[in-house]
């Protein structure tokens, strides 16, 4: 670049940075010891819970999300709500926060009954909630985001006072943040701090956190927990929802376990350990080894897919791959266990070439996959059931028959440029003749179908071509029990025909019933591999939650 160009660039960039109101320097973190707080034995000297729930019940069509829940939260405690996905934790918190109304039950704050009809009501009585997706505007600064939610702000914002207030609270609880920083440039951990400061400045007394650590790096998690400790010493009540028992064990004073919408138990931390918590979370019934369909594995079968030391960057809220190596042979089902967001999404994305890998090697049927187009990969015998069916699997405005042939229209009809839908439908009927799952009519618009129907459509599309490799994300999600069983049978049939399946699922029973081997992903790494013989729900559950 010539000096003229360089000068021009400098001037113009300065021009654009100059008249933005705040500057954007990122806060520097002073040295943090990063030691998790010790678990002090809390003596509950108070008689009156800060927040009390009695008999909270909430039903949605087909499922009882919360079933007569009783809960007491005291000031000065860190109370963890533990449970699997679908146990009803989020629903309960949304009721407390005012997003949902309970079908029955009462809530009271410091003894006085409270009617909460909207988030505004709950904010007013001092309940604050930090969600997984933050209520923050990336384009505005920290101070502006907070000012947006603070009541009683004057017409002419006094930025200095605001900054002062923010810094004061931040200093008190060691939440180091620069009030003038632009939110979009902050890490997830820092954004969470902003949400917390927002709550504190709105005078919340009960602080609820919904899966706060899912987007944090390990050192940020420790910092968060030390903040919790500071807060509870000041008399705040902290309610912390998670499925990770490692965290529950390290920070909780009391733990409430939810399962299928019911409170199983509320215990002080001292009385439980990892094993007992897992059994409470998953249900005592699964104490024996799960029945595994005996599968013969021929070690001489060709390797269909191989990942060697693959690294990728992360996408928004999902971890990138961190030195992942795996291989699948034909006639094998490799199960991938783990809570969604720990890198599973990347497996499929990087295989199809939709996301770049920064290091490592992927081989498909022995071929190096660099520079293969999506089309070429699919043509070589790969099928893919995506994790977001509506967003990535179908074109909502199209009809069922059109979605069934998506991307492969040239293989149907007479194969030329002209489409005769009558022929296509007839061919589809023929191929789907032996397909056991019920499908919607060919001419129905896909966006008018139920979730289960759409799922079946995609499963049908991906399985009828007898793929050599199937990447299946949550294939039975949204399906009723019988259909789910039939789908699993289809997966087994595919394997019997020599297909290889990468099965990503959150349903441990399903993984155990179908997989030859199971790998567990946690924060982008494969933390454990279980062979057929030594897999048990316990161990998988522990590995999934980061417990070693």
């Amino acid at each position: 670049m010539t000096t003229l160009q360089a000068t021009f660039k400098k001037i113009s960039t300065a021009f654009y940075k100059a008249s933005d109101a705040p500057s954007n320097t990122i806060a520097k973190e002073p040295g943090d010891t990063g030691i998790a707080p010790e678990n002090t034995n809390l003596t509950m000297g108070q008689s009156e819970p800060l927040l009390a729930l009695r008999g909270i019940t909430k039903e949605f069509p087909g499922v009882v999300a919360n079933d007569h829940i009783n809960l007491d939260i005291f000031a000065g405690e860190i109370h963890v709500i533990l449970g699997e996905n679908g146990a009803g934790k989020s629903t309960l918190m949304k009721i407390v926060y005012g997003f949902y109304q309970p079908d029955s039950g009462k809530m009271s704050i410091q003894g006085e009954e409270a009617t909460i009809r909207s988030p505004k009501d709950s904010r007013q009585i001092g309940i604050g909630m930090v969600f997984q997706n933050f209520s923050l505007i990336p384009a505005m600064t920290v101070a502006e985001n907070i000012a947006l939610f603070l009541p009683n702000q004057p017409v002419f914002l006094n930025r200095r006072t605001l900054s002062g207030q923010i810094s004061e609270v931040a200093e008190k609880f060691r939440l180091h943040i620069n009030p003038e920083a632009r939110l979009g440039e902050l890490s997830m951990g820092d954004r969470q701090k902003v949400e917390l400061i927002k709550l504190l400045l709105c005078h919340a007394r009960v602080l609820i956190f919904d899966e706060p650590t899912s987007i944090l790096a390990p050192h940020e998690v420790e910092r968060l927990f030390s903040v919790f400790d500071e807060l509870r010493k000041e008399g705040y009540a902290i309610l912390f929802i998670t499925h990770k028992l490692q965290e529950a064990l390290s920070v909780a004073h009391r733990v409430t376990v939810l399962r299928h919408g019911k409170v199983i138990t509320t215990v002080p931390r001292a009385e439980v350990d990892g094993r007992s918590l897992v059994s409470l979370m998953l249900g005592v019934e699964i104490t024996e080894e799960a029945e595994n369909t005996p599968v013969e594995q021929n070690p001489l079968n060709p390797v269909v897919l191989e990942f060697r030391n693959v690294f990728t960057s992360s996408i928004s809220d999902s971890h990138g791959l961190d030195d992942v190596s795996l291989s699948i042979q034909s006639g094998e089902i490799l199960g991938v266990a783990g809570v969604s967001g720990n890198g599973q999404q990347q497996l499929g994305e990087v295989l199809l070439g939709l996301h770049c890998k920064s290091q490592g090697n992927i081989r498909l049927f022995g071929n190096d996959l660099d520079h293969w187009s999506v089309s070429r990969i699919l043509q070589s015998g790969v099928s893919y059931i995506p994790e977001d069916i509506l967003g990535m699997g179908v074109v909502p405005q199209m009809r069922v028959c059109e979605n069934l042939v998506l991307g492969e229209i040239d293989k149907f009809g007479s194969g030329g440029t002209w489409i005769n839908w009558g022929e296509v439908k007839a061919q589809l009927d023929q191929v789907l003749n032996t397909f056991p799952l019920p499908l919607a009519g060919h001419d129905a618009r896909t966006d008018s179908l139920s979730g289960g129907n759409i799922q079946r459509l995609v499963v049908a599309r991906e399985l009828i071509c007898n793929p050599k490799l199937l990447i299946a994300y949550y294939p039975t999600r949204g399906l009723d029990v019988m259909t789910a069983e039939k789908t699993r049978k289809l997966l087994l049939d595919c394997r019997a025909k020599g297909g290889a399946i990468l099965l990503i699922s959150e349903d441990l029973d399903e993984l155990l019933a179908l997989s030859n081997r199971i790998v567990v992903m946690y924060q982008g790494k494969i933390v454990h591999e279980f062979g057929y013989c030594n897999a048990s729900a316990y161990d998988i559950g522990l590995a999934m939650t980061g417990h070693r």
Partner: protein
Amino acid sequence: MEHAEAEQRDLSGQFQARCIDLVKPLIRSLTGIGLALVVFGILLGITSRNPIRIYANLFSYTFGSTAGLSEVGVLMIPFLLTGLAAAIPARVGLINVGGQGQLYLGAWAATGVALYSNIDSIWLMLPAMAIAGSVGGTLWAAIPTCLRQWRDVNEVISTLLLNFVAGLFVNIFVFGPWKSSGSYGYPYTPNFSAAAILPSIGSTRLHWGFIVPLLAVTACYFVFGRTTWGYNMRAVGGNVNASVRRGIPVTRYIVVAMLSGGAIAGLAGMIEVAGIHRHLRPDINLQFGTMGFLASWLAGHDPVVLLGTTFLLSSIMVGGDLLQISANFPSAGIYILIGLVFFCVLGFRRLRDAAK
């Protein structure tokens, strides 16, 4: 026997439902148009003109006389083409408001060929101009396409801005090196030679160029509805993420759609200079690109419905010309009626449709 009867009943029920589906929006649109006409009539009445008599004249001229109908045809030609220039990219999910600019560039390129190529035969000259026009429009559409694919520049903004640049670009030539001597206040290029003129039909201004948009609409109808390309385009426009994951070459479709839009708009430019004006003027057909875009939106980007919406708009515009001559009405005043028609039709669409 019973089963067959039940089936018959069900089929006729389906048929009825389908008819209602088609007729309802049509009735709503017609109501909207009617309302617009009433409001416009009131406006005319306020300024002491007799709306009934004016409307009677307009209808009889526009729909009842050869001259009127041919004028409607004259306008439909560029409207259809610029409408398709918006409809084709819309099918892959792009918004092309640059039909205007692409038309200008086509007109410019065709004029260049007409003035400087010294071809004598009409059978060589016109195709040469047509090719030049298409290429001009394509190149002008290539700019926003490249900017979008390489630098993520939004195509709404880029095509909009380039419209104005194109108009000025044409002006540079018309006011400068291509200005014909003797044209002072309102300059234009020298008139085209006979070889560069599309012959008229009968004594009207309608010329043989009308074949082009008819062919284009027909082609689009078949490509969109019956071919794999049209199907893939719809997939890309409906859900890019799903299309990519199923192996559809999304980039290729997007680029081809945009460039096709540009080519068609460029062709419209050529047809206008060769068929109507016979020379290049500054800011020819100022609003044609916009009208085409609006016609396409009104038609839901459907090529066949586009025939209807362009007919509607052209009729109104012809009415405006007649008003100017007969009732001392400013030529731009007809945009009031066009605006009213759009407001009433757009505003009446059921919210369910709008929310889609």
